[in-house]
């Protein structure tokens, strides 16, 4: 697999434990209690979108559902709110994965932005229907930040796959 489909570079296969580890790490970062600081991106949604686009056969709606339930508990929100939004997000990301990977990273971010925003809008719709309070427009900046972070995040999460297949100890690099 290549970094993007138009690239000539072949990457190592993604390891399942690494995918699992990054998702748990994202969950952990989401758990850091920063209160109602709304502008931080939802890391779980971002990393989940990434793996749904890169590895749609390994990470898809099942993982999204479980992560969503964990987020519901951690957030003290309504059970099923994150699960619902993440499942839709995973479906859309998996479906669009073939298309998105043909684009360079900047344009990939433009595809990811509506996905993240859509997930947030679904959550707002659920909670407003249940009588919640509108969190303010500032809450949606999380998605925009997530899209901006798409480029560095891709490099970071693909780093293990950039390693050479056979390590040559005589070669310095």
């Amino acid at each position: 697999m290549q970094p993007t489909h138009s690239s000539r570079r072949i990457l190592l296969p993604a390891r399942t434990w690494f995918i699992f580890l990054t998702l748990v790490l994202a969950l952990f970062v989401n758990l850091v209690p920063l209160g109602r600081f709304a502008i931080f991106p939802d890391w779980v949604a971002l990393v989940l979108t990434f793996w749904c686009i890169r590895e749609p056969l390994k990470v898809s709606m099942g993982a999204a559902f479980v992560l969503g339930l964990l987020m519901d508990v951690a957030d003290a929100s309504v059970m099923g709110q994150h699960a619902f939004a993440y499942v839709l997000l995973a479906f859309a990301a998996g479906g669009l994965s073939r298309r998105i990977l043909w684009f360079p990273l900047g344009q990939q971010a433009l595809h990811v932005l509506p996905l993240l925003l859509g997930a947030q809008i679904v959550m707002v719709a659920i909670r407003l229907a249940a009588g919640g309070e509108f969190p303010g427009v500032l809450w949606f900046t999380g998605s925009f930040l997530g899209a901006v972070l798409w480029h560095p995040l891709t490099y970071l999460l693909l780093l293990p796959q950039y390693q050479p297949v056979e390590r040559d100890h005589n070669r310095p690099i």
Partner: protein
Amino acid sequence: MSVVGHSPPPFFKRGPAPLARLLFFVSLSIVLLVADLRFHTLEWARLGAATVLWPLQRFAYLPVDAGMDLGDYLASQRALKNENESLRKQQLATANLLLRQEHLDQENRRLRALLDMKERQPSEGRIAEILYAARDPFTRRVIVDKGTQAGVEAGQAVIDELGVLGQVSRTFPLTSEVTLLTDKEQAIPVEVQRSGLRAVLAGAGAGAMELRFLATNADVQPGDVLVTSGLDALYLPGLPVAKVIKIDRDNSFSFARIACEPLAGVERHGQVLILGRRTVPPLPVETTATPDKPAKGRKVKRKH
């Protein structure tokens, strides 16, 4: 998409079609949503998942905790800080009595005339610290560091040194979740301290509250202090709750719009007092109709 040569061809092991999977998970989520919102039957599942998540959550709290500790250490001398802390605890422990003083005086005067004084409910409290605000942006909740192991129960009132803060809405073994008064779903029965007029105060979101269901000519003025009326058998009577800021008496509506702001430091961090459960004498049995029981955390409207 799987890498050629590393796993078998994926044609045969893809499982159900994406659309079928989507439908399955979406319907499962909707079932969960309805079960939680409508029937409130998922508390046991939440408790289980929260217990699994607890170590991770605790670990995630460490950097924030360390940051706060570092700030404290740099900001003040240690001894001074300890003394300050103990004094604050002491003040908080007596706040319950101090805050109700004025109300007690008034009531005392009235009752002395009647010579029909009943024994007042003594109440004990438990000091807890607010750990952090819940991440959910649609509600106003905070997490405090006392849970079922410290004897906290859902429904208990939470106050700070200035007034009522909210109500315990969910308990876990080591922490509990307090819904603040400014939450949209939260309501509290109050009375105007000046006139004794009783009403229901409900959260309006965004740090504000409103006094509901009062006629446009009701005897309320800006600056009036609202105290708990104690009609709901949860809050002790006479605890300060909020102050009236603005009254909009538009005759085209049947009710006045009365905006209030909370007296307690509702959106701040610090130490709070969780009041013990109130035991109220049973209501007298009515012959015509049974009085409706106030549901937990729901608005209770009573005529006076």
